[in-house]
């Protein structure tokens, strides 16, 4: 399965990634891929990724431009985004 992932604000700056195309072997995840599983998967990349995605920082996620919670399922072709709680206005 292939997805696009975006990172914003503090995440983007610290991870030094703003966007990437991810190709995930279908057998990596026992069942449906969720935001939380994707975070855990990415967190294995390094300590910094672990800290930013699974650490103290609150991370919010969106799938196809809609805010969702950690248990939202991700499908092939989805656009996923990770970012800190928003602070506009």
């Amino acid at each position, binding site marked *: 399965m292939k997805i696009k992932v975006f990172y*914003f604000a503090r995440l983007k700056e610290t991870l030094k990634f703003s966007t990437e195309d991810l190709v995930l072997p279908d057998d990596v995840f026992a069942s449906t891929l969720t935001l939380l599983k994707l975070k855990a998967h990415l967190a294995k990349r390094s300590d910094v990724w672990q800290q930013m995605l699974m650490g103290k920082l609150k991370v919010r996620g969106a799938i196809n431009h809609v805010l969702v919670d950690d248990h939202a399922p991700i499908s092939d072709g989805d656009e996923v985004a990770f970012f800190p*709680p928003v*602070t506009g206005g």
Partner: protein
Amino acid sequence: MTVRVQTQDFDAGFEISQLRSARKDTGAVVSFVGLVRDLNEGDQVSQLTLEHYPGMTEKALEAIVSQAQSRWNIFEVTVIHRVGTLQATEQIVLVTVAGAHRGEAFKACEFIMDYLKTEAPFWKKERTQAGERWLDAKNTDDAARERWNK
């Protein structure tokens, strides 16, 4: 509804006139203008940079305005949010709501701001004498949003 995300400044007076002349049965126009404060958490702020999520921002704002329009009997709504680097005292955001009566226009305008603060993908980074820092989301903003669900 009109929703714009832009780097350039806006003219609140112009936007208000547009809304009030759109319908002859408009009795109330409530507007909110948010500004860059030169002071935050006790530190002097020289500038603010607003980042956003281009594909999602307009959609999120439109969804918030739609919610307001389904909750209250209001007419037109304009939301303009700036992105990029802004100096202290510059305008960040405008929300203008036109309606027949003031009570609903006030509620809808405040609702849109409370939801924008907690659901629209914008992030602020401020520059102070100590350097740059990303702003953390405020619990008071979450609380302001939650009261609409009671």
